[in-house]
């Protein structure tokens, strides 16, 4: 990994791209690798970015899962963002291999922390993603344990790892293990 993490943004709104540029340039470890309106444009750059902040819906009618797969196959860390919780689309993107999901309007510190975690092989779970996964009602959803459901339920409601751990009477590290296992169960479906 280079000393500067090259982060690009893919979104079809110029204003949003401008906003992401401003945010990326404010993070000391990040360098702005460009703003693009399609995944194809993003991947046509040389070298490809280390990480991409990907709007879940693009106007070029591409499918979110398809975009995620294209970026992942190029070795790029993908954090999906959206304006609101379109649960099934988000789950589809996660199952296609997206490293994380964040809401556009949420804390950008969490997004940058998520990108950094993904770059070292982690699978960040934002409270927004936890909430969506906790409400996954598909009949063929990955089978989660009762404890994993509880962790998703409370973490998705905004409790910190520590508070989830206190509430369930387990160690904070165990909460992280549960979240990691949940992500693995969803990733194994891609």
């Amino acid at each position, binding site marked *: 990994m280079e000393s500067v993490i090259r982060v690009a943004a893919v979104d079809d709104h110029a204003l949003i791209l401008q906003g992401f540029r401003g945010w990326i340039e404010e993070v000391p470890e990040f360098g702005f690798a460009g703003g693009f309106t399609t995944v194809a444009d993003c991947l046509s750059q040389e070298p490809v970015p280390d990480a991409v902040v990907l709007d879940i819906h693009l106007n070029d009618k591409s499918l979110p899962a398809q975009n995620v797969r294209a970026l992942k196959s190029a070795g790029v860390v993908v954090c999906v963002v959206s*304006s*609101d*919780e379109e*649960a099934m689309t988000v789950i589809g993107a996660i199952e296609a291999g997206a490293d994380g999901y964040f*809401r556009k*309007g*949420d*804390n950008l510190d969490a997004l940058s922390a998520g990108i950094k975690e993904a770059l070292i092989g982690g699978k960040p779970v934002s*409270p*927004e993603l936890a*909430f969506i996964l906790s*409400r996954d*009602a598909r009949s063929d959803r990955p089978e989660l344990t009762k404890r994993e459901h509880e962790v998703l339920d409370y973490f*998705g*409601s*905004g*409790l*910190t790892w*520590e*508070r989830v751990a*206190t*509430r369930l009477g387990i160690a904070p590290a165990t909460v992280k293990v549960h979240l990691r296992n949940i992500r693995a169960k969803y990733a194994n479906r891609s």
Partner: protein
Amino acid sequence: MTTRDAPSAGDVAAEPGRAERKATAWLVRSLALLRVAQLTPGALTVATSSDHYRAAALMACLFIVEVAWCAALFAAALRRGWFTKAAMLTDAGFQAVVTVAVGWLCIDGQATQTANWSVAPVVGASILASLFLSRPALFIITAGLIISYLVGVSADLPEHWVNALGNVGAIAAFTWAASLVGVRLIQESRSADAAAQRAADEEQERVRVEARFAERTRQYRRLHDTVLSTLEGIARGGLDYVAVGVRQRCASDANLVRSLSAAVDHVSDLSPLPVVLAQAMRDVQSFGLEIHAHSDRIPHAIPNEVVDAAAGAVREALNNVWKHARVDEAWVTTRGEVDGGILIRIVDNGVGFDPEKVGASGGLDGSIRRRWAEVGGVTHLDSGPTGTMVELIWSP
């Protein structure tokens, strides 16, 4: 077997409507009067023409049994509002036996005359059958009754076959005419009930559409007062969109729009709860508290008082966060439960408090717990040094 078997074959009788109930009640009363009218001449004949019978006492007993059966049949029908199919079939069988017996008990030459009082009840039984049975089944029952009559009068047939033929014609003709009138009457009543039901459904749909339209109008008004005015302010160039206040307002407006869109995610009808909660959150967010709102599968059939109580409780809980928790963000999660109820969680990761030390007059007890309990809700509170979680649970 139901008491409402369809007179027109093939119809599946649902719970009868008002018009059908009136029609069948009218038919039962009419048939009862008809049977009384049919038996009255028989009573006079039995009482005054004992010389027309081989065994007058036995004939009188038979007539009394006939009257008793008819009384029981129509008493039950008047009580229930309609006949059972079993009662109808029993009546037909009973009258078949009676007409054979009465024919045999008449002396020679009287079986096809007025002394044979059984012809009238046979017509009544056949008319009753016509209201229940399809054409082929009715034909079989009526033919059975006619054959029974002919068996009873068989000794007189060679000399009085014209009279017998007249009675057979009367049985067939009355049955046919009654079948047309009775079945048409019930079919018309069912059509009237179906039309009334359609009108009621259309009225219900109209009310529902109006309610949705009113809710959407309220939402548009909220958007006009919030998001639109913010955007217009920026568009006019009168606002610096980088300024903290403007950005906070934009964040509040974005949350409002997000909550409104969540309201239509999983339900065909708009649920008022997400909209009302969004407004409550926006009120507190305008103070500078960042609120992360999640919602999922919120049932739309939540009573208005519960919606209002939820909005008040959430607003108060967020006010508490803003005033006491010393944090700048909070989470509000609203979700539908499998029993049709809702669960709302308000979470902050700030400075908590000791619930034991909070006075009964505090905001928690007064504005949240009591308000929520008044609509049948349950409040759970978990607070400690690392934050507070208020759970509002309501089940229908």
